[in-house]
């Protein structure tokens, strides 16, 4: 459904754009209906940039992003953009900043209505909103008409998901949607995503928290400095991380029942490890994705 082919993004930074920053370089992956793909990587690895490109909030410097077969860069004009957004929506990290603080929180629904459902009657629309709210587990009476600061982060985040559901979307980009939430609310939101996935929604789940990525996703894409270093079924990637970077990342994740020392020990025991891709025929240290198994590829760019 969503296919990224050699997508790159270069920012001009510094005063007057004197320097170039390659935030994303030649990224490939796809998201199928009903699949959750998690994009995992440390800060600055280009996760959000990919998410924004998919959402057409920024344009790709090169490569193609195709949604249902059509290159989204070709969607010119207001009408086609709108059309696209009725299929693909996003939810962002900071629920507080997603709401205009001076308006009631349900304004996000009003915006959607104004653009997409002008003809729908008030009552009908209200029913749809309430429906969506119930889907995300909110009590309409509790949240409608409230200001953002009167609602909790979890509630706000769910409002945003409900907003996306008001449109007949096929694809949801969820950019760190839970990192700002309390541990207990987090899981509720994650569970909600799980339910949506069951309804056939494709989800691009962006996170730096591997345990969360693992919990919800089918496929994991590990990013490092804008490049995909490992891609594969979540189970494979986490149980048998191939790339040394993935392994190091995993060892740094604080876990309840494993201490860092233990993780280090395991890492030491298994050996830092070579990139299996290099071994499997890629040019050492500078090769693109090399398939290790069905649905498990590794890339290596240490030399570049």
């Amino acid at each position: 459904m969503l296919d990224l082919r050699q997508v790159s993004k270069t920012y001009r930074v510094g005063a007057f754009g004197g320097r170039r920053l390659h935030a994303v370089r030649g990224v490939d992956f796809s998201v199928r209906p009903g699949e959750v793909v998690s994009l995992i990587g440390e800060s600055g690895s280009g996760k959000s940039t990919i998410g924004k490109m998919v959402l057409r909030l920024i344009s790709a410097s090169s490569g193609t992003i195709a949604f249902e077969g059509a290159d989204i860069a070709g969607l010119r004009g207001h009408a086609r953009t709108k059309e696209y957004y009725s299929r693909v929506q996003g939810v962002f990290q900071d629920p507080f900043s997603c709401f205009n603080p001076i308006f009631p929180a349900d304004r996000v629904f009003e915006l959607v209505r104004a653009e997409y459902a002008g003809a729908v009657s008030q009552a009908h629309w209200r029913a749809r909103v309430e429906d969506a709210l119930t889907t995300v587990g909110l009590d309409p009476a509790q949240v409608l008409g409230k200001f953002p600061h009167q609602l909790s982060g979890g509630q706000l985040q769910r409002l945003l998901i409900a907003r996306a559901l008001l449109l007949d979307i096929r694809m949801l980009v969820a950019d760190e949607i839970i990192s700002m939430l309390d541990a207990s609310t987090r899981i509720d939101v994650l569970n909600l995503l799980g339910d949506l996935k069951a309804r056939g929604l494709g989800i691009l789940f962006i996170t730096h928290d591997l345990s969360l990525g693992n919990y919800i996703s089918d496929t994991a894409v590990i990013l490092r400095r804008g490049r995909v270093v490992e891609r594969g079924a979540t189970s494979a990637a986490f149980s048998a991380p191939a790339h040394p970077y993935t392994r190091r990342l995993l060892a740094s994740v604080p876990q309840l029942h494993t201490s860092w020392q233990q993780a280090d020990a395991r890492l030491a025991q298994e050996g830092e490890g070579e990139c299996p891709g290099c071994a499997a025929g890629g040019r050492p240290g500078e090769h693109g994705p090399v398939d290790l198994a069905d649905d498990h590829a590794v890339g290596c760019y240490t030399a570049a």
Partner: protein
Amino acid sequence: MRRVSLDVTDLAVYYRTLRGDVRALDGVSFSLADGEIMGLAGESGSGKSTLAKSLIRMDGRMRRIRGRVELDGTELPVDDQRAMVPFRFHEVSLIPQYAMSALNPTRRIGRMIRELIRSRGIDYTAVHPELLRRLELVGLDAQVLDRFPIELSGGMKQRVVMVLSTLLDPSLLIADEVTSALDVTTQRSVAEALAGFRDRGFITSMIFVTHDLALVHQIADTIMVMYAGRPAEKASSRTVIEAPRHPYTRMLLSSLPEVGVTFSGKRLEGIPGQPPGLLDPPEGCRFRDRCPLAFAKCAEEPPFTEVAPGHWAACWKVEG
């Protein structure tokens, strides 16, 4: 038991607002042994930062209502800005929540440190070698002193602040959410460096504030979980993770996914409901409304008692 370095008794600190007092800290008692790193966990708004601030520098809206704080046997005049000054930095020190913006952007780091040290009446030359040594310890070379904060990455700034805050070997270090904005790898190095400081005796004890239980578990000796302005449970970190007594702690832990747990495999559940507002909190146990074990007695405030050696909890159900 080791010597107690910090002793907080029934501390209550409210924020004055237009609509009334926000009871952000409402009767907190705990003590910290020499060399202890205490993780302070709890959801957002539970009063972690308020506690941290109370121990070193209250802001203009905070009022101490009751309670006392003793550090190494002397009482800290927490609500007297002037009287607190001699304690700050020397005895109590802080790594603030936003270490990224804690350094003056227009002063070279070295100069700022020098001026700060001198302003505290300390001979900078005497401290300088130690400063360099500690910078090296956290993996920074002496050149950072000639740089401006903006020239350093977030992690580097974080470490500079760490070194600076602990330079005078304070008894108590408060680290407020120092790792929250960092990614996992940096998080780890910072946390480990802090523990290392304790190990080397740069600081006697530390309160490590975070909302990430998994992280705090990695370095803390004890963990105190707060809920709505009150401590819910305090015990050694192992105990808190493996044998929590307070229902809140338990529910919190059970909602944490771990690597390996998946949605399709084992569906985790969150804690239903929301914490009470602190403007006018209900009487009795504040977790009552969300607690599956709540019973009539919970309308009374449960005391924070030692339910086992080194294990305190505030719940009627855990007593006995």
